[in-house]
């Protein structure tokens, strides 16, 4: 009993709990469904206020980086991404949903920029905002030309869904909150070379394949050795040491190499197998998408006339 | 007509040769054509338009502009109020009130007391000109007719006769004299008092 009470007490002691509570309540109210006797407008107003409160409490959790501009941008991009996410899932109009998701993607790209991943930011914008969302918008506009559909105004069991997802969020918060600065991990955490120079402790690398293959075929091994030698790590380490020696200020920026060159070097040496797998995945997806949308399939089986159905399949495009 | 009618003649689109399929040589040909035109105007002033108020375009002799009512040698209106033009007019823009001719005009029974053409309704087809048995109504080469109100654009007999006075020298009556090859530009109509 005491265990449960203690648990409840510690849960209520976390400010994150209130953020989750308010956010969950507000999102529940904002989700499209019938709110009993309450007028929809009142429910939505209350939901907006609750979400805003939850977001404010949530933002007190954030600790901005030391400089002014990155801090401002962090708050702006973070807030817009979370607000955009809430509006994505609560908008009645799927076009509005897609546009809010575009705002989520754009602010995420901004956060990528803050984390010194400009190539990734641009790539995310090109792939998500430029291609995926636009094609989705295309389909929405073709499919739903006559305004708000019935199924967009009714969520599936919104209460349970909200409960589930916000319990997950609370669990994530609780685990993230245990990250305490400088206490558990050690004082050396701020140091430049964190674990860059200990490649053995990092994730499984493609060059480990060399050991796994272990084939007596020297030729094969040679190919693998040449293809997957971990040269990006070596180069990075040499660069870091060299610059740290003669220019200590320059090392305040952790990632020295040009972003694209660094990613490319690491990708085509340490992660070569992943690249190959991703290529195979893309190819399979291409074939799959083409196979699924075969225009010769009967499109509307509701017309029960088999002759007509056959004609649909054989008509000249 | 059915799609498989034997009397239908099928015309296939021309098959493109390889240099037409890759587009580039044909695009270059097209660029050469437009380039010639651009350079022709920009360098050699080969434009076909004129600077209107300063220079006046002279339309071809069969241009159909604003109407005029012709006068005969004695200065009388030639019209005999036979109503053929009003009948022929597809736009019904001619309104004639005929009256008995005075006794000193022995060559006709009637003449128009009022002859009104709504120039805004007119479609400038020239049917009135063709219908007229006495060559009284003609279409001139005047194209710059303007007005500040709809009423101003309803031409009465006096104004139509004054059009004749303005254009008499430039455009003689079509069936009495051979028109000059390239006539002098007509002047702008002076404002008329009603």
């Amino acid at each position, binding site marked *: 009993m005491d265990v449960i009470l203690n648990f409840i007490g510690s849960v209520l002691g976390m400010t994150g709990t209130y953020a989750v509570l308010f956010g969950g309540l507000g999102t529940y109210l904002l989700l499209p469904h019938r709110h009993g006797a309450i007028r929809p407008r009142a429910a939505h107003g209350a939901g907006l206020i609750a979400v805003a409160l939850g977001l404010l409490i949530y933002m007190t959790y954030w600790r901005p980086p030391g400089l002014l501009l990155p801090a401002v941008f962090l708050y702006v991009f973070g807030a817009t991404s979370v607000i955009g996410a809430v509006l994505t899932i609560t908008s009645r109009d799927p*076009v509005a949903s897609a*546009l809010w998701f*575009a705002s989520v993607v754009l602010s995420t*790209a901004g956060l990528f920029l803050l984390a010194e991943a*400009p*190539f990734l*930011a*641009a*790539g995310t*914008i*090109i792939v998500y*905002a*430029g*291609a995926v969302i*636009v*094609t989705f*918008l*295309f389909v929405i*506009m*073709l499919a739903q*030309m006559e305004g708000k559909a019935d199924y967009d105004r009714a969520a599936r069991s919104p209460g349970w869904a909200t409960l589930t997802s916000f319990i997950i969020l609370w669990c994530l918060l609780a685990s993230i909150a245990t990250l305490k600065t400088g206490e558990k991990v050690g004082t050396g955490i701020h140091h430049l070379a964190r674990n860059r120079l200990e490649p053995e402790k990092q994730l499984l690398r493609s060059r480990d394949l060399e050991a796994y293959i272990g084939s007596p075929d020297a030729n094969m091994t040679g190919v693998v050795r040449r293809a997957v030698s971990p040269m990006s790590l070596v180069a990075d380490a040499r660069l870091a040491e060299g610059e740290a020696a003669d220019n200590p200020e320059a090392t305040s920026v952790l990632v020295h190499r*040009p*972003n*694209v*060159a660094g990613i490319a070097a690491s990708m085509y040496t340490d992660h070569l197998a992943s690249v190959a797998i991703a290529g195979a995945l893309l190819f399979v997806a291409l074939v799959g998408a083409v196979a699924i949308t075969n225009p010769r399939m009967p499109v509307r089986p509701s017309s029960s006339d088999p002759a007509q159905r056959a004609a649909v399949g054989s008509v000249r495009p | 007509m059915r799609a498989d009618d034997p009397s239908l003649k099928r015309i296939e689109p021309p098959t493109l040769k390889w240099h037409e399929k890759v587009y*580039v040589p044909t*695009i270059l040909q*097209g*660029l050469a*054509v*437009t*380039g010639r*035109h*651009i350079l*022709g*105007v*920009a360098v050699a002033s*080969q*434009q*076909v*338009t004129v*600077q209107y108020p300063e220079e006046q375009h002279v339309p071809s002799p069969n241009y159909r502009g604003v109407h005029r009512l012709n006068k005969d040698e004695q200065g009388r209106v030639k019209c005999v109020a036979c109503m053929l033009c009003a009948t022929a007019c597809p736009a019904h823009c001619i309104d004639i009130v005929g009256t008995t001719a005075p006794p000193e005009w022995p060559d006709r029974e009637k003449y128009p007391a009022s002859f009104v053409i709504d120039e805004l309704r007119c479609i400038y087809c020239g049917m009135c000109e063709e219908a007229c048995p006495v060559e009284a109504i003609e279409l001139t080469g005047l194209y710059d007719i303007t007005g500040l109100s709809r009423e101003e654009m309803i031409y009465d007999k006096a104004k139509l006769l004054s059009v004749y006075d303005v254009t008499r020298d430039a455009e003689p009556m079509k069936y009495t004299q051979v028109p000059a090859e390239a006539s002098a530009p007509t002047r702008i109509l002076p404002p008329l008092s009603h």
Partner: protein
Amino acid sequence: MLVLIGIVIKMLVVVGVTQGAVAYLILVERKVAAYAQDRIGPNRCGPFALIQPLADGAKMLLKEDVIPGYVNKPLYLLAPLIAIVTATIGFAVVPFGPVGVSAPGVSLPFGMGDYKVDFQIAPAIDIGIVYVFAVGSLAVYAVILAGWASNNKYSFIGGLRSSAQLISYEIPLGLSILPTVLLAGSLDLNAIINYQDALGESLPFGLGSLGFLGWGVFTCPIGFLIFLTSAFAETNRLPFDLPESEQELIGGFHTEYSAMKFGMFFLGEYLHVITVSFLTVVLFFGGWDLPGLSQEQVGWIPALLKTGVLVGKVALMIVFMMWIRWTLPRFRYDQLMDLAWKALIPLALVNLVAMMVFLQATRS
């Protein structure tokens, strides 16, 4: 701090100059259109109609602004903004002249030190061209939103056409520049210019003395053709202006827009034309490179000379785009899609692989 102020000044200059350039581009476009049709074109406002852009701008600003009652108002108002913003922020990485070591420096008064005047708003961004593509891929939102929010069949069809067209043509556009990028070994636009300059001067058999054979248009001509075609499609210029085809869609996505909101679409379109012309010149015509100019020349006079050369090339490119406009008729929609998917994309892939094979064979 000094760097920040410099960037702000550069932004102001670039935005001001490009917006003014757009006003005069409209005049140039009208003149070229007139000449191609054996007309004279605007010639009444001042000498050579130089005041015409001011008159046009005043007309745009003073016209009555009509917002139809049936539109989706927030999106309707957002669309022209997106058009102009996406077109403007693409200029952040475009080099307008020498950048880096060859850029001239000024020494500031009051002992504030030296300041390097790069002719680029954000120098040393190594994803340069990817950034331009990212920003350019956002431009489609303006057209789609305008078409959707106008609540009008013609606008809607225009928006749908444009979304399909822009997505399709982004692929050959991206693929066509990759051979150039591979050659130069960098995505940075300056590095690409410098590479073309250096390559042109280092060619064997006395070709190096010509100086301009290192330009992208000579090293990968197929990529240049594909890039040019896709660029026309991306900017909605005439052989591919299906989103706004005046004849069958009465203006397409901007049918319902009037006054300055229409003007903003116009501005956005011409800013896109300028960006694309800059990209073409930088990637395929050597940027500021001419025989006699090289990246080792430091100082103000070579810098201004290079900027002049670059701007002159861009102006020629823009005039060429207008020239093309009055030469080619509009494509049919299925022809447009066939051209992208069946011709340009395979060709660009083959071009890319050929360049990769060539580099691998010559460099290892």
